[in-house]
Each structure stands twice: as C-alpha cells, then as structure tokens.
C-alpha cells in the first residue's frame, strides 16, 4: 500500500527524520487559527503520482494566495482520483538536492539503498540521463545496516566527508523506518542539503507491505479511506479479494486462487473478451461465500456476464454450485453466469446447476468451452 505524503511524513516524524513543519487540511475552514510561515507550499494529497504536472503543487506568499491554492487543489482530479486533502508546509530553498531511498530488491531479496547527489527529479530519469551519479548498496538482512554503509555511499558518490555524521544518522533513521515500518519503499526525494550540512526531507514516499498490516493497525483505517472502489471494501468484508482490471471489460471472473484468475483472464483476452474485474474466493469457500461473491460481482455496473472458473481441491464443486443456486434464489439475475469447475464433487455440482433450470446459468466442461459460451451468446445457450 502506497502512503500519501502526509501519512508518510507522520512516519518520518516518528523516526526523527527532519523535514519542514507542516499540517494537512480537508477544507478551507481548517485553515482558521493555524500559524503559517510564508512563503509556504500547498501540496495535493492523492494516492497516485503525477500531481506536480497536474498543478497539484503550488507556492503561496500570503493568506490570500494560500486560500486560492487550497481552493484550486482540494477537490481537483488527478488521474481519476479526487484530492481530499492538501498538505501545507514551509517553503525551503535548498543549496542542493540529493536523493536517498531504501527499496526492496526482489531479485537479491534484500533491502537496497539508493543514493544520488542528483536529487529532485525522478530516479528513473536520473538513471537514464546521469547513470554515473547513482550509487546502490544491497544490505544483507542478517548483517543489517552497519556504519560503513554510509561511508561507502558518500565516498562512492564523491561527497565531502563533512556530511558524514548527518548522513549516517539520517540513513540509520530511514533504515529503522524501513525495517520497523515493514516498508517496500522509503524514499526521500528531494533530500535538501544546506551549506552547513543540515539535511531535510522535502518529500516523503512510503510503500508498506500489505502482508504486514497486522503489525500496523493504524494503517487499516487509512487503507479504507484511500480505497474509493466500494466493491473492494465489500469484498474485504466477505473475505474475498476484489481486483479491478480493465475499466472497459465486461466479464467478471470468479476463481479460487490468484494463478487461476490470471490464467482465466489470459484465456478470455486471447479470445477477445476483456475482464473488468476478478474476485478471488481463496481456498475452501462455502456455498454462502460463493453466493455473496456472485452478488458482489454482479453489483459491479460494468459486469455484463460472470465467469466462474474453479479447480476444486479444497474447494468443493458442489459448494460452488449450491452458492450459485443460493444467489439465484435470493437475488436472481438475467445476466449470463457461466460456470466451469473440475475436481472434488464435480458430478454433484453439475447436478445442482442443472436442477436450477435457469437458462442463463450454464455449466461448461472446460476452460475453452467457457470462453466459447461467453463469446457466442454472451453465455446464453
């Protein structure tokens, strides 16, 4: 999960990473009574990148400009996401800008420290245009962060050793944040450098490992706040993962595992059918959970047909069929529901589906037969 800047700054503050003072507002009324040092910066808080280009970062020299900037930013649309909060911080004009981050290196399976004296721009951009200015260091998790890491990074980047004490302290704090915060990324860009060696984080970017959220319960509320697709939240309540896919897709896939979902999408796509969303039942789903999943799938206005594709190991095919029947009894739908399953209790499941006597509920014996059914009559027999 990507934290928005204001949330990432809370992390930075908790670990003692210095940065300009600031606060966040949701509307203009919240500016009342705040002590503000001008000039300041107003920064849109959105769960997507590209806010600078979208006009989401504006300076303000006085109270009138601040109100105007907040008015422009709050409620603005960045890549389809509405800006609900604006961050107001003191303006800092650094002598120089560096880049410092710790990221997960999946290939090496270690944290990777990335440092560059050419900060400010996107690191990908810097890597392309000034490849010599980026220094990287993998940290063996068994060794952790040792003091020589900071020495190495500065030396390799050709930085004056006078910065070493500050830099070493900052890297230590960022590493503790990365580790204790269960981060996949903790990035400071730009890292402002004053002439006297004082370092300040002017932006904060933090990605937290979703699997570790149980260790950070304060982020669970934030996650729900950021999620603007109500079906994701509904799925979460039902113990089902709702994955939005192609916004133009018309088929919704329900399956009992991540691999099977991806394979289903691939086979459908190969035959010209775009998937709008996918739902992962997980293992061992009961009829109740299957019925609820079909309900959530069909409550997506983009869903014109549902394709249920199950390999029954722990999950039983008769439970899946019963769940479909349960949904039809309770809610019903005229949209095609194409069901393909294989494995445990398949015959019993087929019997249940046939006994439903619904024209729009079709059992298909195989993945390709399912694709055919969906492609031809959009599921109708």
């Amino acid at each position: 999960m990507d934290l928005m800047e204001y949330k990432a700054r809370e992390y930075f503050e908790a670990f003692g990473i210095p940065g300009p003072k600031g606060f966040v507002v949701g509307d203009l009324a919240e500016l009342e009574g705040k002590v503000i040092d001008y000039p300041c910066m107003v920064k849109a808080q959105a769960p997507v990148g590209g806010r600078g280009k979208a006009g989401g970062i504006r300076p303000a020299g006085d109270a009138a400009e601040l109100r105007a900037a907040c008015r422009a930013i709050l409620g603005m649309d960045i890549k389809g996401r509405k800006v609900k909060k604006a961050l107001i911080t003191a303006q800092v004009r650094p002598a120089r800008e560096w880049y410092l981050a710790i990221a997960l290196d999946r290939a090496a399976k270690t944290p990777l420290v990335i440092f560059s004296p050419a900060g400010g721009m996107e690191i990908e951009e810097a890597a392309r245009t000034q490849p010599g200015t980026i220094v990287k260091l993998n940290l063996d998790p068994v060794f952790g962060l040792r003091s020589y890491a900071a020495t190495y990074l500065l030396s390799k980047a050709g930085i004056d050793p006078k910065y070493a004490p500050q830099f070493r302290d900052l890297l230590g704090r960022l590493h503790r944040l990365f580790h204790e915060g269960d981060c996949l990324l903790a990035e400071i860009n730009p890292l402002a450098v004053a002439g006297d060696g004082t370092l300040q984080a002017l932006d904060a970017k933090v990605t937290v490992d979703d699997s570790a959220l149980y260790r950070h319960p304060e982020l669970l509320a934030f996650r729900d706040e950021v999620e603007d697709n109500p079906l994701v939240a509904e799925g979460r309540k039902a113990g089902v993962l709702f994955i939005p896919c192609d916004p133009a897709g018309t088929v919704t896939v329900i399956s009992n595992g991540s691999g099977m979902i991806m394979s289903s999408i691939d086979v459908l796509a190969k035959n010209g059918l775009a998937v709008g969303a996918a739902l992962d039942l997980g293992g061992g789903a009961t009829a109740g959970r299957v019925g609820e999943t079909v309900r959530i799938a069909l409550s997506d206005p983009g869903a014109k047909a549902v394709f249920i594709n199950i390999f029954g190991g722990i999950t039983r095919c008769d439970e899946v069929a019963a769940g479909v029947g349960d949904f039809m009894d309770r809610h019903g739908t005229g949209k095609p529901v194409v069901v393909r399953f294989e494995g445990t209790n398949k015959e019993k499941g087929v019997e249940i589906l046939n006994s439903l006597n619904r024209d729009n509920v079709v059992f298909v014996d195989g993945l390709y037969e399912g694709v055919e059914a969906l492609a031809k009559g959009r599921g109708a027999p």
Partner: protein
Amino acid sequence: MSILVDENTRLIVQGITGREGAFHTEQMLAYHTRVAAGVTPGKGGRRVHGVPVFNTVREAAEATGANASIAFVPARFTAESVYEAMDADLPLVLAVAEHVPVMDMMGVHHAARKRNCRVIGPNSFGVISPGKAKAGFMAHRIFAPGRVGIMSRSATNCYETVYLLTREGIGQSTCVGNGGDAIPGSAFVDILPLFAADPGTEIIVIIGEIGGGEEELAAAYIKERVEKPVIALVAGRNSPRGRSMGHAGAIIGADGGGSAERKEEALREAGVHIAESAADIVKIAKRLGA
C-alpha cells in the same frame, strides 16, 4: 526417482495440534508419508493421529531423527517456526501460510543460505513426489507417478496442469510449490539443479507468473546448464499494471517490469517451450514424448 521428498523423508509437522496441522497430518499419513513428529509449544507428550508431539523442533528432531519440517502455522508465526527448524539443523523446511511479511522472509531467505538449509514456501502447497510421499496440503488424488517434474508459483495452475497430465496418462516425478510471494524461500533457479540432476525427471515444467524476475533467472540457468526439455507457462499476460493479482508477488510494475512478455522472451531465448495454458503444457509434453 524424485527430488526433495520421498519414502526416506521423516517429517516434523509444526503446529500439528492446530486444525489445519492435524487434518493434513492425517492426509499425509494416508499418503504413506513418514510423519515422525509434531511440534506445538506447551503440548509436548500428546499424540495426534498416533504421531508424538514435542514442545520444540530440537527435541522432536533429537528424539526421532527427523530430516524435514513443515510449518502449518499462521503467517505471523511462520518466520519464527522456520528459524526454529533451521536452528535445529533440519536441511529442508516448508511453510504454507499466505501473507507472510516480506521483512520476515528476507531474513529467513538469507539465514537459510548461511545455514545450508532449503526453505520451500511460504504461500506454497508444499512438495509431493507422487506414489512416495507428500509434505503439504495438495489434493493428492490428482497426482500420478511419472517422469515430469513440475515447479509452480501457483497452486491452482499447478493442480489444473497435473489434473490434465494425469488424465492423459502422464505422471509426475515431483511437484514443488514455490509459492506466490515476492520473496520465496526457494525460487525456480534453486530447484532447477535438482530436477536437472534427477534421473527420474525427463521433462521439467515451470509454472510462473507476472512479477519479479525468477523466470528470467531460471532462463539464464537453463541456457547454460540444463539439457532436459523445459516447458514454461507464464500466467498474467493480460493482468493490469501496478496491481497485485492476489498473490503478493504477482504484480507488474508501473514501468512494465515483471511482465509476462519479458519473461517469455527470456525463456524462449533459453530454448524453453512456451505454453499458453495448462492444456497447452500437456500438448507440448506429449509432443516431447511424455
């Protein structure tokens, strides 16, 4: 022949008194796996399906001479369980739980290498050598003994493939669940040398998916070191970018990193046969004489 798990495996089940641990101990015993001991702290002295329970892995290993362990414990206790098994010098440790934090697994991965321990999982169905033994929770009825070695990041895609292979009379030497997480204990490239050296494996099947670079690493290894025919399926070609597809590790980066196209290209370049679906794997295997 087979790899990792066979009739000589003497397995410890960590978390044996839990619901999943007890149920799958029974299933593994039914498949003639030698489950030597179970471990649950504070419950030593009991028996579960006839298997003696110990308080710690070290005591269980000392008393029974066990040589492998599988952790049927929730994600938040998985790293601790794997460390305990590694610290008892077991050479093979499996973990099944989904959603183990990345930070936990980074430590486990590197500690395992320093202790010469092989860790399989987490987020894995385990390992099965059909007709010999299984360490895991896979529905074993669909497997049959044979000469195709399979390793997979996905349980469901592996099951589907195995089901279709078995239906066509094509058996398997060993099936390894590498797991769907970003940091697996063992990646494809760690298991490849075992399949390559196993005289009982004639064809190797890799069931990969989007995210990370394990398929590319496997391709580089195959190109240099593997003579046996390899078939690969990479799921997720049409998945949206920047979104984890259920498996924590199955995510294409915003820059297109970890895409199916790049993986297939690397594998194809290494002489691997690319399959588009489970059914396609069977077709290719048949063509290769399986």
